[in-house]
């Protein structure tokens, strides 16, 4: 049975996280504006950051388990050195 090729690997970009507390907020704002020009950013609470991390971990689990299942089926339908089908046996003995 033919085995189709895998999808191309993921290409992921690095993501930079800024952790800011109240005492460093003003410094952060000024340095952020200096670095990026504009003051516009996405803020996450720690709880949401944790949820985001857990969501990514869950997606990673799903990807890896899906891959393992694909590997299982590839091995299952792949050639077996000791495998002799019934039809082959009949042809050989007749």
């Amino acid at each position, binding site marked *: 049975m033919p085995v189709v090729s895998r999808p191309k690997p993921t290409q*992921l970009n690095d993501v930079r996280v800024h*952790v800011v507390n109240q005492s460093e907020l003003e410094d952060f704002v000024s340095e952020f504006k200096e670095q990026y020009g504009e003051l516009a950013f996405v803020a996450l609470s720690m709880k949401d950051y944790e949820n985001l991390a857990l969501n990514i971990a869950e997606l*990673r689990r799903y990807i890896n388990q899906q891959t393992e299942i694909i590997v299982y089926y590839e091995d299952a339908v792949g050639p077996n050195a000791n495998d002799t089908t019934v039809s082959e046996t009949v042809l050989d003995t007749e």
Partner: protein
Amino acid sequence: MLKVYAILIIVGVLGTFAYGAKYYYNTTQATIATLRENNAQLEVAVQTAQASVESLQQDMQKFAELNSQLQADLQAAEAYGDELQSKLNRLDLVQDALRDAETLEGKMNGATANLWRDIIKDTGGDASRPLPQWLQSGEQARTGDTDSNQDRENTSASGESPQTNTAE
């Protein structure tokens, strides 16, 4: 005259016996040939059945091994999420951020960068690309001179080991 009749009767009886013997011999030979042919067919059938049984046994053994391996691999895939959940339960990120935001930022960025590379590796990609410049420099977040989008294009950095703590 009686002798002639007696001889004819004896010849007839002997002829009948001879014909019967010949008929018996022919039918017996035919039966033997049929049985021999049936026996050959049965031998082929037995060989086929034995080959089928062996093939099924091999398949069963193969699938048992594959199933066992699959269960182990599926369990292993749970490890990262379980470990992360356990770590997040153990840590108090709010308190860590209030105490030392810069250190926490370094840990987060290091862990995130490693996570992307692990996922790239999981999907069959090349995870050996260097960490972004701003992460390698050891100067975190607000002191970096490039952003993550710029680093996306600049992946030809030296590949030095990161200065940040990526353990958590």
